[in-house]
């Protein structure tokens, strides 16, 4: 099998260095805060681009796909600047408040609409939700094999091999295209967009799709259709300021031992 299409899944997330908040309905505030392409999805874009570059004779098209509010266009734009060829943005009021189950449905339907590629690449986790389940759910929905959480990726012909740190072992996992792949931040530094890349991105195709375009009923997604409900959100009380001592000639060690003993750790 030749590889002609790669779809890379990129999510628009609130900036983790800013003040992340919740809305009154207990959903993540995605609009009132600064957002960006999830840092962890940059690694997915990077791997997609590296595979394309290594297989230069195959004319591979890399499409960045995002599901999110209007602002999520920023995420696919960044992917285009890094070097993706095309972008697809699924955006619909009805999607707001969707859980991972619904997000995976929208992604699956969007992928079926644009054509199921030989390779789908996702990130380790969303930096906001952080479930690490969407790639597995997508593979379940599309009936494709999944090779996830890769620290090292190699492809040859229709074979994909990854290396990863499993829960109890270091593993090499093999699969045959078409499949769903996800990569970690161990897989290789993500490139910065070059000036040329930023200019070129302006002319690259960016398609926006609504739920009806991809054949998803509005009732299947969004907060009301979620199969889980958030009952309450509580900000963690700020930690009470601790005691800080300066070590002078061993005084630090003595004080620390006293502290540990007072808390019954020794």
């Amino acid at each position, binding site marked *: 099998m030749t590889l002609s299409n790669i779809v890379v899944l990129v999510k628009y997330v609130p900036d*983790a*260095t800013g003040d*992340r908040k*919740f809305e009154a309905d*207990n959903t993540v505030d995605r609009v009132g805060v600064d957002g960006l392409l999830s840092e*962890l999805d940059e690694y997915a874009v990077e791997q997609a681009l590296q595979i394309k570059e290594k297989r230069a004779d195959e004319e591979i098209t890399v499409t960045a796909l995002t599901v999110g509010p209007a602002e999520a266009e920023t995420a696919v734009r960044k992917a285009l600047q890094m070097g993706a060829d095309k972008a697809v943005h699924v955006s619909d009021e009805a999607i707001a408040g969707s*859980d991972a*189950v619904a997000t*995976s449905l929208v992604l699956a339907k969007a992928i079926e609409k644009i054509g199921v590629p030989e390779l789908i690449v996702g990130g380790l986790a969303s930096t906001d939700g*952080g*479930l*690490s*389940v*969407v790639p*597995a*759910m997508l*593979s*379940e929905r599309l*009936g494709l*094999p*999944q*090779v*996830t*959480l890769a*620290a090292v990726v190699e492809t040859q012909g229709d074979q994909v091999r990854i290396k990863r*740190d*499993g*829960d*109890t072992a*270091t*593993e*090499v*996992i*093999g*699969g*045959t295209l078409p499949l769903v792949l996800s990569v*970690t*931040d*161990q897989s290789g530094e993500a490139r910065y967009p070059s000036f040329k890349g930023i200019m070129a991105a302006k002319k690259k195709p960016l398609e926006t799709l609504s739920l009806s375009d991809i054949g998803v009923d509005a009732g299947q997604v969004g907060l009301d259709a979620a*199969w*889980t409900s*958030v009952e*309450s959100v509580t900000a*963690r009380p700020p*930690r009470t300021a*601790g*005691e*800080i*001592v*300066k*070590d002078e000639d061993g005084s*630090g*060690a*003595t004080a*620390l*031992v006293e*502290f*540990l003993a007072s*808390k019954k*750790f020794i």
Partner: protein
Amino acid sequence: MSEVLVLVDHVDGAVRKPTYELLAIAKRIGEPSAVFIGGADKAAAAADAVKAYGAEKVYVVDDAEIKGYLVAPKAEVLQQIAAAASPAAILIPASAEGKEIAGRLAIKLESGLITDAVDVQVNGSDIVTTQSVFAGNFTVEAKVTQGTPIIAVKPNAAAPEEGAGAGAVEEFAATISDAAKTAQIVAAQPRQSTGRPELTEAAIVVSGGRGTGGDFTAVEGLADALGAAVGASRAAVDSGWKPHTFQVGQTGKVVSPQLYVANGISGAIQHRAGMQTSKTIVAVNKDEEAPIFELVDFGVVGDLHAVLPAVTAEIEKRKG
């Protein structure tokens, strides 16, 4: 009372501690039924182990045909047992593998999924979960509103409770589709045991960062004196001083021990994301401006290579 399925987390038949924690949670909801997917020759011992922690029933599924095929077959097994048992909930360890199984199962059963629960309580007819989100800055209570609640539970969410259940063993013959037998483990190198507690399960974690300069002797010495697991920052991992499996943080392990001791770690947001919910936090850092000091219950401004060995020596002396 309804059954509550608990997926047994084990390495080659040796049941891991999170399984016992899940059984303790299952008892709050209904009758715990453990699901053991593994080697037929290991099943009896595993069944005894989970029985001792309250399993009323043990579904045994021989994995001869599916070993190495990762998560898809396990999701099919759980789907089939759930169809037969109509459980009140399905509890799965929130490991990377467990969460993927849970995700696939949620779609198969058209059921809501909650991952990374740090607590699960029963409130009337509701099963209410607690999660810690945004690097531990918020606590979220949630519940499943459709189907069979599928909950991926983090280590240390409950204390294991000894006390034998009936432990009735039921061999379950699952039918696995060919589609589930695709991606496959082609080679695996089991992790060498460090002789220390598992990072995510440990009551105490002692970590080292770039400030160790690559010499973890002082960090490991303190860890051993305290019976702790050893962790590392990403800077220490990227420098090749410790394998990635030691990394604490957003892209490593998320730990929530009784005591976390950060040594030579500045306290970047990605590191905090992995340790901020620890009950007690201690830091040793040369730089009094290091952001880690904003989190600590106790901090020492000093050189870890001087402070830690002195602390270790004093602890050893007190132990006698």
